[in-house]
């Protein structure tokens, strides 16, 4: 088998790492952030689409000069996207990366670089 084939190594170290409390914690932290935020932004985006289609009276309300709620709602989609992205990056480097690095080091110590 040449190295062109990419597949699992079957190395026992993975099962050991999988069983560690650090890995369980890393997985818990990752899922606790990624899943709810994915659900939240999808719901927020769907709400925007549905309201643009079927709540036009509300969306057409003018707020400031020619700027209406529809435009503000659309711009808020940009704001929420940027905000979630920044929040995730900060959260990940503080809460995921140290654990991942530690587990990665254990792997390297076991298998060699």
């Amino acid at each position, binding site marked *: *088998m*040449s*190295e*062109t*084939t*990419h*597949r*699992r*190594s*079957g*190395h026992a*170290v*993975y*099962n050991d*790492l*999988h069983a560690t409390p650090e*890995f369980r914690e*890393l*997985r818990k932290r*990752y899922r606790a*952030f*990624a899943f709810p*935020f*994915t659900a939240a*932004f*999808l719901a927020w*985006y*769907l709400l925007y*689409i*549905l309201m*643009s*289609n*079927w709540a*036009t009276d509300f*969306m*057409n309300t003018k707020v*400031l*000069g*020619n*700027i*209406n709620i*529809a*435009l503000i709602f*659309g711009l808020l*989609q*940009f704001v929420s*996207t*940027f905000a*979630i*992205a920044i929040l*995730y*990056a900060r959260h*990940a480097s503080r809460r*995921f990366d140290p654990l*991942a690095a530690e*587990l*990665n080091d*254990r*792997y390297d110590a076991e*298998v060699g670089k």
Partner: protein
Amino acid sequence: MSSHALTLILFGAVVGVTVGITIWASRQTSGTADYYAGGRSFSGFQNGLAISGDYMSAASFLGISGAIALYGYDGFLYSIGFLVAWLIALLLIAELLRNSGRYTMADQLAYRMRQRPVRTAAATSTVVVSIFYLLAQMVGASALVGLLLGVTNEGLKTLVIVAVGLLMIFYVVVGGMKGTTWVQIVKAVLLMGGTLLITVMVLAKFGFNLSELLGAASQNSGKGEGFLQPGLKYGVSTTSQIDFVSLGLALVLGTAGLPHILVRFYTVPTARDARKSVLWAIGLIGTFYLMTLVLGFGAAALLDTGADSKVVASGGNLASPLLAEALGGGAGSTGGAVLLALISAVAFATILAVVAGLTLTSASSVAHDLYASVIKRGTSSEKDEVKAAKIAAFVIGGIAIALAIPAQKLNIAFLVALAFAVAASANLPSLVYNLFWRKFNTRGATWSIYGGLASSMILVFFSPVVSGKGENPVTGASLSLFPASVDFSWFPLENPGIISIPLGFFFGWLGTVTSRDLDSELAYDELEVRSLTGAGSEGVVTH
């Protein structure tokens, strides 16, 4: 000097610079990791630029600003799905894929499944999505270059397709991922720079007052208040409203399943860099769509968008270039000619970069998944594999050229949306299941890919975009792919996503629960550890 001559000179400059970069990159490309993944040596920022370069096609640059110029708010509504979608890539896909895959989308599935069936399935959907996208870009390129250079001769337009096709084959065959990535980076810088310039000029005209710009746009459009409100394009009927929801779903869920985007995550050394690249991409793409909002409303405010205007005749595609000309002093002025030529060259660079990324991705999948793993069963050398990838690039490029030439006369604008729908229905379900569902197995993977692929394509085939939409009352051209006299449509929506995405997920579930595959299940622990920690994933290639 006329604007056309100036445009040609700038086109030449774009070609010269990108060809130079490609030749330079080829000197640093030797093995498969270089050819497929650019040696995994790009920084997060560089890859973020390249992702933006791959993603912001001429359809988004010219198409979205054009849609805003013609339909006002609804054009903006359309652009939002393209941005929001990146959160799926950031939160669920980029880092995990970087850690658990290698060169292609299929790698990540093959890691714990039976190699040949999943690689064949993933390669099929990679090639189908890429060819659809490619075809739309190439046909768009010939129409666009024709418009920008004022060419109406059919032979010359065909020549444009052939030239664009040959250039893209050259980038991919000679430069591999390294060359293609640098082409994307150059294009992204040009596109952001050009768009920023025009945006600032538009805003300056209105004293940096957004409300004033909107007011002028709605007044000049002749559509009044409605121009600033949702509904002008998508709110025509209940069917068109549901159609838009369906499109929105495909955009949001399809982006993170586009093969040419997925392979970009392999070009960086670590998962952290993959995260950084998506962050940069979100910043750049978001800023870009905010600027197209100004461009679109600026075009509506400053240009003639009446029934027989140039903007309407081009379907909105010329809104940005003509806006640039108007801002420079109008037709015939030197300033106008310079700005028009500049924006045209930016559009041209955009097209070249996107088609190169698509060709590289499908050639990689054919060589790595089909040739090396399915046919040669992992016995081929790296050298053979790179050679196979180069041959595949020639073949795929050739097929794209051959299909694009007759497609020029057909209405194929639906192909980009279809590519997103297939990516969302066939690719995303298998990726998400594979990363997060222990029981997911080979049959589940192949069923979700083939099931999602088939359902989106069958639904589109029997939809109004293929037949039965009638004809354009002015030009008499068919609004569907087939001539207006043919009608075999029964599916009312133009976008299949709302049905085909749930079907893709359903088939993946069904295939999984109807078969047992203990190997895949056992291997899930390894995949999970590797995807979350990066343990055992490949780093930078050093020569």
